[in-house]
């Protein structure tokens, strides 16, 4: 059946090979004097200006999975899937306020990961280790999910096989190429590829939102078709508007996802790679262009309803794979060559975030596990080398997740990932503002928040599953007399904060040692050209004017 899709496959393969070449060439792009340094391999030399940052962070935050899963959610549940829009509005003012401080303190101290910052701020290698492990565990399934994005496209093009190996071979090849050029070029590879990825996505979506409504009878008809579908469905919580039960879930999910997104190691990597504070701040005004795009992409779910798209069967008998609706919609409505371009946009869209995520996870391992616990005196070149190898291991792990486990497992893990990464909020985000919390308080709060989050997720049932059925926790489980639901992550992080605060008060009363803050208040405002930055690849360390404790 793949022969019916030959044009699509040729266009897809051509564009895919083009970016692969770009990935390898990227090592020479803005080439540093010395690539054997984590600042160069893992943060692109901390030198990216406005445009590169815009493409890189945009390509990083809006992943292929987002582009496939958000319309799938709209297709299945309606308005509840539109949370992606407020979610990606709320995040930018938060970054504007918070991550700029992280950039400054990292710039001055040479931090590469959020755990580096926590270690210095709270003088606690244990807390830093917990933050690093949380980051790695949350990121791994996210990388695996990018593969699901590619798989949805391949499935639609008929590239499948009879056995597991044949079915997964294209993905294994794609990831092997990705792993090779990430190994060689580091963060420069996704930064360069992001230009192609985002340009393709913008073209495809602009064409889709102008051409498809025209073909499908206009927006009024599209919303009417969606409304009719949800009216006919037995599920009381779907529809083109929210109802009394899911409004709280909608806003807490939007807020919680925004808080989680900017705590994810890969977003922090993208932000830390920019040249100065101004680049970040200006980008916070320019990045919402992607949110508009995402809002329009979400509506592709309704267009698929209006176009009568029937999702392909899922992996288990009788199930359907809603993730295939967008590729199917393109296949059905667009000429073959343009559908090929659209598929390439999704496929390449998976590579950029997957590369950045694996770099971020590798940096966490190198800085906060390898250097902290295995080899304290590692040189910058050894650090860069360990990170490169770790990035390979991370990708092999992600492919193994998809090949050997039920993809549903990755989706569950990603759901959990959002909740667990939120538990680093008190140490990382609040830590940028205050050192009021005691390091042990933060550790206890983290543990309780994690435990509670896991338990709550376990309790959530869905029509098809008994546990891990979603992130909407029914408040009735807490004994409230209501049918409302709330996002698990928000509850878990609130409890985490409360526990951290109580333990802090207790430890302070008992006068337990709090360690020494390695940062000074004006570290949080340092900017490019700051004379007090500590040793970097091509900077002098001896210009420090005041001791950095």
């Amino acid at each position: 059946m793949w022969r019916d899709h030959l044009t699509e496959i040729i266009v897809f393969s051509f564009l895919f090979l083009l970016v692969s070449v770009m990935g390898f060439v990227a090592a020479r792009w803005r080439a540093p004097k010395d690539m054997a340094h984590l600042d160069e391999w893992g943060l692109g030399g901390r030198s990216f200006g406005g445009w590169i940052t815009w493409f890189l962070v945009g390509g990083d935050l809006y992943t292929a999975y987002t582009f496939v899963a958000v319309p799938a959610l709209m297709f299945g549940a309606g308005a509840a899937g539109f949370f992606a829009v407020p979610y990606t509005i709320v995040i930018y003012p938060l970054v504007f306020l918070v991550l700029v401080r992280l950039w400054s303190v990292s710039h001055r101290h040479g931090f590469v990961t959020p755990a580096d910052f926590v270690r210095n701020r709270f003088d606690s290698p244990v807390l830093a280790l917990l933050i690093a492990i949380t980051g790695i565990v949350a990121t791994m399934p996210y990388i695996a999910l990018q593969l699901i994005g590619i798989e949805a496209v391949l499935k639609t093009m008929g590239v499948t096989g009879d056995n597991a190996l044949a079915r997964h071979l294209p993905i294994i090849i794609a990831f092997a190429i990705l792993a090779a050029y990430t190994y060689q070029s580091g963060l420069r590879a996704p930064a360069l590829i992001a230009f192609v990825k985002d340009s393709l996505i913008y073209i495809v979506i602009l064409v889709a939102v102008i051409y498809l409504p025209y073909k499908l009878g206009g927006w009024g008809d599209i919303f009417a078709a969606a409304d009719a579908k949800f009216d006919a469905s037995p599920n009381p919580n779907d529809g083109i508007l929210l109802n009394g039960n899911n409004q709280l879930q909608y806003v807490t999910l939007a807020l919680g996802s925004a808080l989680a997104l900017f705590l994810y190691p890969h977003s922090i990597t993208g932000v830390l790679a920019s040249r100065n504070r101004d680049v970040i701040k200006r980008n916070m005004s320019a990045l919402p262009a992607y949110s508009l795009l995402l809002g329009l992409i979400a509506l592709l779910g309704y267009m698929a309803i209006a176009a009568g798209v029937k999702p392909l069967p899922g992996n288990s008998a009788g199930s359907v794979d809603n993730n295939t609706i967008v590729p199917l919609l393109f296949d059905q409505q667009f000429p073959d060559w343009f559908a090929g371009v659209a598929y390439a946009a999704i496929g390449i869209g998976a590579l950029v975030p997957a590369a950045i995520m694996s770099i971020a996870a590798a940096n966490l391992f190198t800085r906060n596990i390898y250097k902290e616990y295995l080899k304290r005196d590692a040189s910058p070149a050894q650090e860069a080398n360990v990170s490169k190898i770790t990035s390979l291991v991370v990708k092999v792990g992600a492919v193994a997740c998809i090949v050997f486990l039920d993809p549903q497992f990755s989706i569950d893990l990603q759901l959990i990932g959002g909740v667990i990464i939120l538990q680093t909020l008190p140490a990382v985000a609040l830590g940028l503002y205050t050192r009021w919390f005691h390091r042990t308080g933060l550790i206890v709060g983290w543990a309780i928040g994690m435990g509670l989050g896991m338990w709550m997720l376990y309790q959530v049932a869905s029509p098809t599953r008994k546990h891990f059925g979603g992130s909407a926790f029914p408040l009735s489980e807490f004994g409230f007399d209501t049918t409302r639901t709330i996002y698990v992550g928000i509850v878990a992080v609130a409890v985490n904060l409360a526990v951290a605060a109580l333990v802090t008060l207790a430890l302070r009363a008992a006068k337990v040692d709090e360690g020494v803050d390695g940062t000074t208040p004006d570290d949080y405002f340092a900017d490019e050209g700051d004379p007090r930055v500590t040793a970097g690849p091509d900077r002098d360390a001896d210009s420090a004017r005041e001791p950095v404790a």
Partner: protein
Amino acid sequence: MAAPEPEAPTTAPTRAKDHSPWNWLLFIPIVVPLIPVFFNGDSPRVFGFPRFYWLQLAFILLGVGTTTLVYQMTKKRGGS
């Protein structure tokens, strides 16, 4: 989103940089998109879009406008 910094102010003349009152404006695009009463309705429709959809898309402009304004008002003036 966090309590103000409780640490005693040290000798840092650059501190005031991030403490501009303009920053408070950033809470508008954080809070407004999270109040469903504003957008959870069908009418009025714009180009066939129910209010739920066009208003939330319009909030993107609110976010862009606010961050741009705050950036312009707080960026370093003059040289340096």
